[in-house]
């Protein structure tokens, strides 16, 4: 039996939780942690298995994504306002994309979820209790994987890819250092500390993201396999399901072959 769905708090009005047949899988991590790459690979793997998927992420709601982007360009909103703007974006996607997809039995792959939003707000001085209450409307995911990557490696990956560090991911709005490099490292450390603190409360799984994409993907697939087979808990149990082992092995080989011909272009 799959674990029944629940909200963190009172949740959304008018949602019948027992009708949500799909699975919500969240991948969290900083820019450069390999989140998007991992999600793209998971999507190929799941769709090859025959499971329909839906991708969601931050700032992608129909309701406010454009307005939110504009406001961030000007950097004119206060911390609390920005938090609530993001919460609106999240709620719109939760109600109009995530929940309908789960109702139809899709696997929802979330490129970040409330944890990034909460940690960003908290390191900028918003009270933990308040932001938790705001996000008590959120659905508890079936699995949350946090790709932890050391800040130094994050810098290298970001610079190699874009030759520039992102203003917000470097916490430049916090004015902790005029050096973008130092600010990035310090900001990412603060965020990671917050994630570690949240881990106890929200119980998500930390994945060592310093490794190769393949190694990470193999670990994710094995863990997701367990969840999809209806066994709650993320610890590998002794299993007589030889099929399952075979499937994992096949998935791993498939990926090792690099035969991911239908992989969509990587999102930024």
């Amino acid at each position, binding site marked *: 039996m799959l674990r029944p769905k629940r909200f963190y708090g009172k949740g959304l009005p008018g949602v019948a939780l027992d009708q949500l047949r799909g699975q919500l899988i969240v991948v969290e991590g900083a820019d450069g942690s390999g989140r998007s790459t991992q999600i793209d690979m998971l999507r190929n793997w799941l769709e090859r298995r025959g499971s329909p998927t839906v991708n969601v992420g931050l700032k992608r709601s129909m*309701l406010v994504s454009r307005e939110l982007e504009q406001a961030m360009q000007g950097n004119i909103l206060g*911390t609390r306002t920005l938090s*609530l703007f993001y919460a609106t974006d999240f*709620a*719109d996607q939760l109600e109009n994309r995530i929940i309908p997809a789960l109702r139809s039995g899709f696997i929802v792959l979330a490129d970040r979820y409330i944890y990034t939003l909460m940690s960003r707000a908290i390191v900028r001085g918003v009270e933990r209790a308040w932001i938790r*209450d705001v996000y008590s*409307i959120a659905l508890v995911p079936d699995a949350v994987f946090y790709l932890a990557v050391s800040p130094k490696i994050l810098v290298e990956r970001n610079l190699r890819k874009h030759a520039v560090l992102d203003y917000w991911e470097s916490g430049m709005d916090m004015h902790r250092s005029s050096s973008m490099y130092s600010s990035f490292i310090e900001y990412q450390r603060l965020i990671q500390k917050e994630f570690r603190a949240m881990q106890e409360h929200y119980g998500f799984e930390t994945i060592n993201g310093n490794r190769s994409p393949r190694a990470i993907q193999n670990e994710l697939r094995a863990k997701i396999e367990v969840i999809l087979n209806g066994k709650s808990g993320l610890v590998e149990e002794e299993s007589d399901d030889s099929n399952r082992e075979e499937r994992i092995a096949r998935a791993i080989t498939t990926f090792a072959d690099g035969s991911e011909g239908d992989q969509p272009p990587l999102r930024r």
Partner: protein
Amino acid sequence: MTETEAGKLVAVEGLDGSGKSTQVYLLKRWLELDGYKVFFTEWNSSAIVRKATRKGKKRQLLTSTTFSLIHSTDFADRYERQILPLLNAGYIVLADRYVFTAFARDAVRGCDRDWIRKLYSFAIKPDVTFYFDVPLKTALSRILDGRTRVKYHEAGMDMGYSKDPYESFRIFQGKIYNEYRRMVREYDFIRIDAEEPPDVQQAKVREILEMKIDLPRYRWHGSIYPQHTP
């Protein structure tokens, strides 16, 4: 809700058609013409957020939760950038609708009352909250007489009470009225009988304000260039 800063916060609440906007306008005119530091702010008026709200309403994209969150974003923007700094600077801030409007409307739309209150828990409690109390019938006739149509959300059409906008409006406003009545004691609203003539109401409002606030402290005095020598 926390306590206020150097300035004073005065909120007005009431149903659409209670006449509260007229009363707060007159209050503002009195204070500014008599030389007080006064600032006026209106519900749902942050320039940045309003665009998103308008789109959401127009295309009917909003649910009770996103309706609530987008209004709280609007409020937070006005709060962080205007209300709070102006209170810190010793202004009298007049708010045409405050968090109580969200408490009433969002609860009617089905949001959890406790969640809504927590959402707005960062907002300070007003020093004075005037509640313009008017029987539902009077409010409805003031709004509906001489109006050709009521707006979709104003009428609560999103709630599906009735296909007829006027009937829907009646039902929706009735429910909001009940929410306000629940809050009168909880939040120390000062009740003003909104059926009295406007000038009588305004005289009462001014009298109460003079009792509650040491007004002379909020007068403009001195120069904004104190070091300036001619």
